[in-house]
């Protein structure tokens, strides 16, 4: 899936436009950045309801290229500014976490942590 497809599927507002043609295969959804840092491996999209600069820092450390803020949260401009500096795409979706993840999954995006 391309980043620009996420914009359509989740009816996103684009707050910082990075490489929209980039192909992404896996994502993770979490409000706990501790868990993202501990469990995420090669996921390139982060869905979260948390709104602070540490979301961008976490994505940066994990080499994630796209952040989706779910449930139409009020966007903090300092968060977007930091993402712009780090060249990370920032999207805002009106959907809540469960629905946003479900829509992406049903369109082919995976979690990258399938249980054997």
């Amino acid at each position: 899936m391309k980043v620009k497809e996420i914009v359509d599927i989740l009816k996103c507002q684009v707050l910082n436009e990075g490489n929209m043609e980039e192909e992404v295969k896996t994502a993770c959804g979490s409000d706990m950045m501790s868990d993202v840092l501990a469990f995420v491996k090669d996921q390139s999209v982060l869905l979260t309801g948390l709104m602070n600069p540490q979301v961008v820092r976490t994505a940066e450390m994990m080499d994630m290229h796209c952040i989706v803020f779910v449930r139409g949260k009020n966007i903090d401009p300092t968060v977007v500014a930091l993402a712009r500096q780090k060249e990370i795409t920032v999207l805002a979706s009106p959907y809540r976490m469960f629905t946003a993840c479900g829509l992406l999954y049903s369109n082919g995006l995976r979690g990258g942590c399938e249980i054997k």
Partner: protein
Amino acid sequence: MSMLHLTYQVPGDDFTRAGEASGDVKHKLKKLGYEPDAVRRVAIAMYEGEINMVIHAGGGEAVVDIDPDRVDILLQDHGPGIADVDQAMQAGWSTAPDNVRALGFGAGMGLPNMKKYTDEMTIDSVVGEGTAVRMTVFPGRKEEGR
């Protein structure tokens, strides 16, 4: 002397700035051409450490020595110290207050995660004096199986 010696002050009163030092080290390692796996391991471990210093110790100092075959990170603070290091190393064990959890941290994964991503890690802590965490990443040792 290391090839590149970096020192950072990690401010203890500004949560929003936690991660600046790690971000800078990540950027430098990338520019120097270190393999992505090693760059990521250094960045994550150091970032977790930075967050810890801000949450628990009122900030501190980060010293990073970069060499072709190793990256050494020293995180030094003058916080309350860790009474029981073995307990602190257990996944899920945390003394972080609720306001830190509301910021997305304090799940008790920081120290175990730092150990997971680095090749060597030691913690020297004295209650009432502070904590020193030393971590080393050897580029080329794959993340495989971590």
